[in-house]
């Protein structure tokens, strides 16, 4: 290798981008030529200097905190999914849903449903309706009824057994066009059986509770009220 070649290749050498045999030729030349060796050494020191000085720049702590906060409060995937879902559903909103008062005796039960929705634990059983039904049969003291019918944009992910207060319950987990949607289902005592559906907001989540075939179901999701009520099967609407 000549001095001219060595100078031409010095960047590749510095960046570790030379083919192995070229690198050996380069190093043989550097060993034999003090002038080139000094020049390459200077570049190595210069590169190290730039890396050390600029590499000490850190993101401001406010930026780090903001990024971490936004990641932890981030909810995927936003409006497009919501609109697609809303468009795929026939939105029928019976008058009673809006006008039904919110009796306070249902509040603790809905609290449980919201807590179950927010729980990070995954489903005990994952899979389609048949898999979920066969898992739940005999494990809960009430008839197993998958709460939501098949519909575009709404997919059953699985279920887990839970408690609402002292009552055994099942939490069904759905994916509604990318949004998590849960249905907590339990057999009521009698006094807390709502006469009709009711709808409300809790911590930015839409909560809809309605009676269905002797069970109480609370649907929780971060979707608009109109979308959530649209997901609930028409036959179970009051």
């Amino acid at each position, binding site marked *: 290798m000549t001095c001219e070649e060595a100078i031409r290749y010095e960047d590749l050498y510095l960046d570790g981008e030379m083919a192995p045999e070229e690198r050996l030729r380069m190093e043989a030349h550097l060993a034999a030529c003090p002038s080139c060796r000094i020049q390459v050494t200077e570049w190595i020191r210069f590169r190290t200097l730039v890396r050390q000085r600029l590499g000490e720049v850190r993101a401001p702590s406010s930026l780090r905190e903001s990024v971490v906060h936004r990641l932890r409060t981030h909810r*995927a995937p936003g409006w497009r999914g919501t609109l697609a879902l809303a468009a795929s559903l026939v939105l029928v909103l019976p008058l009673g849903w809006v006008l039904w008062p919110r009796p306070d005796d249902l509040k603790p039960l809905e609290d449980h449903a919201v807590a179950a929705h927010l729980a990070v634990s995954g489903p005990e059983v994952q899979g389609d309706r048949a898999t979920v039904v066969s898992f739940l049969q005999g494990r809960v003291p009430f008839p197993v009824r998958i709460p939501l019918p098949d519909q575009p944009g709404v997919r059953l992910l699985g279920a887990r057994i839970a408690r609402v207060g002292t009552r055994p319950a099942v939490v069904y987990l759905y994916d509604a066009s990318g949004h998590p949607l849960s249905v907590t289902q339990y057999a009521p005592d009698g006094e807390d059986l709502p006469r009709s559906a009711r709808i409300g907001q809790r911590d930015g989540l839409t909560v809809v509770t309605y009676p269905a075939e002797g069970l109480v179901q609370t649907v929780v999701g971060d979707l608009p009220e109109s979308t959530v009520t649209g997901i609930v099967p028409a036959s179970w609407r009051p």
Partner: protein
Amino acid sequence: MWPFHDADRRRRFEREALPHLDACYRFALALTRDAAEADDLVQETMLRAFRAFDSYTEGTRCKAWLFRILKNVFLNRRRTDGREVDLEESLGAIQELGWEDRPFYRSPEDAVLLAATRDRIEEALGRMPRDFREAVVLADVEGLSYQEIAEVMGTPIGTVMSRIHRGRRMLRSLLGESLGILQETLQERPHEAPNRGPGQVIPLVATREGRHDL
């Protein structure tokens, strides 16, 4: 996504991507030269990366993947506000600085350069056209391979090589100037590289993966 999906993905993201936050900020600063804009750019990049994290292939370098997203966010913003600087302008800037008229390939006195502070280096980088600054920062500060830099910059590897080559020498000369080292004293050094005309790239060479320049 469900909380348990999100929680799992978030943990993975925090483990793999978040350690590169400082590097992202440095790259954003190199692109924008503005702390507030860099801050903004990094926030948007991290959120986009988090949303797209399912498409990130494990085993590839997460830093290079984040840089590609950051560069896209940066370019989209520049295009939106009409501030995009293209290569032609960069070359114009080189001529304006008089780069083509002086032997900027020579290195100023090493011992003096080593005393350069971070502020001095940043100031010198700030005087360079963005494409050259970007190439030098990605190679020298962040240690990306030529292939990774080519992907971030959206240019062929040959262009990356020529920008690194010229960029390094620009930086070294500007730094030398700012430290009061006279260019004339350098011209007498051995191995003076020939002055290359505008747009000329460094010659064809075999590289690590057997690929060739341009």
